[in-house]
């Protein structure tokens, strides 16, 4: 008697630890984690270790190449230290990426769970809206929005979230649809629990695996999108640095000062690749079907 009662309680942590173990054994995911942690440490601690302020202008030291005059990544056209700007830009870009991920995951989850739980007309309408948003090339929609708003980190975050919630919505909808008819949901319904309780306390927690994977990949996407629009001048505005707007003027100095373009682009690539690697590892770890592969 006691054994049967204990069995389910004991099984839950074992599955979790199996997922953790599978994730830890995923070499690429570990590499990704190291990349993200290193970059985050550099961006949030690095500025305190540097001799230069990110806004300090020194016109005598314009276009200093990397590793000259104490500037490890060189200086920009105004003589500002690129390392200091890169780390501060990293704080901005990563914060925007994270905040956009949280926002779009929330929107996507709510839309997905409503659509998956109610089905029928609700689902048809919501999913057509998702399809319609997916029909726009996201950069087009994002730029159209960015051009007509007051650009600031908060608004940029909102519009990135507004154009990247659709994937999560689709994933959650598909997941909830398969969970909806299972016994534990029937049981909850017979207990007289409200639809809201079933959706957010029963269904959504059971779909958490795919949501985490999608959220991780959304951070990567959001960092890329921020970089795109800031590069084109519609995103984060100077003097606040972001990885995208650091590249904004780099094209005209490509021949004389290539490090202006190379350094921030590498930072973006490392951050995005890091999140993509971790997302891939999480998918393999959390997806029970992946064991067969």
């Amino acid at each position, binding site marked *: 008697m006691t054994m049967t009662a204990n069995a389910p309680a004991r099984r839950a942590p074992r599955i979790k630890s199996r997922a953790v173990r599978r994730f830890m054994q995923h070499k*690429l995911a570990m590499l990704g984690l190291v990349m993200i942690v290193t970059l985050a440490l550099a961006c949030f601690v690095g500025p305190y270790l540097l001799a230069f302020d990110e806004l300090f202008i020194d016109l005598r030291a314009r276009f200093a190449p990397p590793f000259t005059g104490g500037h490890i990544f060189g200086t920009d056209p105004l003589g500002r230290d690129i390392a200091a700007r890169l780390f501060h830009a990293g704080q901005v870009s990563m914060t925007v990426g994270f905040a956009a991920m949280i926002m779009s995951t929330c929107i996507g989850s709510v839309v997905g769970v409503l659509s998956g739980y109610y089905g029928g007309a609700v689902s048809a309408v919501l999913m*057509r*809206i998702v*399809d*319609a*948003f*997916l*029909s*726009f*090339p*996201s*950069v*087009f*929609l994002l*730029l*159209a*929005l960015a*051009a*007509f*708003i*007051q650009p600031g980190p908060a608004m940029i975050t909102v519009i990135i979230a507004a154009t990247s919630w659709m994937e999560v919505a689709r994933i959650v909808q598909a997941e909830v649809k398969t969970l909806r008819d299972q016994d534990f949901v029937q049981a909850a319904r017979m207990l007289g629990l409200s639809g809201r309780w079933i959706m957010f306390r029963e269904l959504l927690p059971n779909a958490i695996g795919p949501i985490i994977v999608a959220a991780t990949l959304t951070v*990567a996407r959001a960092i*890329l999108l921020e*970089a*795109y629009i800031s*590069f*084109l001048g*519609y995103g984060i505005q100077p003097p606040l640095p972001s990885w995208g707007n650091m*590249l904004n003027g*780099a*094209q005209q100095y*490509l*021949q004389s000062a*290539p490090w202006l*373009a*190379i350094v*921030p*682009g590498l930072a*973006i*690539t490392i951050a*995005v*690749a890091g999140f*993509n*690697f971790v997302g*891939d590892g999480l998918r393999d770890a959390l997806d029970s079907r992946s064991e067969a592969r």
Partner: protein
Amino acid sequence: MLRYLSGRLGQSLILLFIVSLIGFFVLSLAPGGPLSQFALSPGMTQEQMDRVAEQMGLNRPIIVQYFDWLTSMLAGDWGTSYRDQQPVLTIIADHLFATMLLMGTATAIAVTVGTTVGIWSAVRRGSVFDYTTTVLAMVALSIPTFWFGLIAIYIFSLELGWLPAGNMYTVGDGSIGDYAVHLILPALVLALVDVAVWSRYMRTATLNVINQDFVRTARAKGLPNRRILFKHIVGNALVPMITLAGLQLPVVLGGALVTETVFTWPGMGRLFLDSLGYSDYPVVMGLLMASAMLVLIGNLAADLIVAVVDPRVRLS
């Protein structure tokens, strides 16, 4: 078959309607809106602004404006550009070819390279080649297209001097060879992400087919390996790739916009950015609609081809 087609067409039209609603309301409700361009000109009084708004019909309820815009759009009148007073449809048509050329070339590269890599890594699953391409594909997906473009220009135009750094042709030349030389770099840059996506999907699709019964039957019949691979496996694995090509369209179109900016390529992406810079509202709206239409037509075409190729879809 006919019912399937009309059903899909109906769905696309409904989608297009929602797309137009989103596009119109997003741009109309944004602070500033269509009038922002006039607000910038010096000496503009509130009275004059009101008169402009009235002339353009912008003081009417937004629903009325929307249906007015929708009916004239359906009649082929997409408005006139604020910048040079040309019809929006003409301007878009002028830039369509350049974008199509770029996207077509990039997609051709991506399909050829991507499917080959995908098939090969599926057949040699777990090999060094499979692992290397997996990692490379993920790195390729992480590189910002515009930055890759900048680096490509730096290496191949500025340092090596092999290829031109931008534009579609040299003024005064314009031969096919000249176009081709200008096309290489932007097409390769745009193709990078696409190659990665295609190789991943082709690998999965091939793996899905490779263990199926009819492949085992073919092997049991003693057919040569090469014949099984190309006729039985690849033939079937390519079907979902047609749908993928449709689904990838918005990504490629978005990538084309970014690539065009870096390479000063005279396509729709550049036009979009220029129009944004001028707050040329009718052209921005027209391009949003045109890009969504292209995507929907592409998806519809993909579904059509799948229905023709794959009897399972046609009959269900």
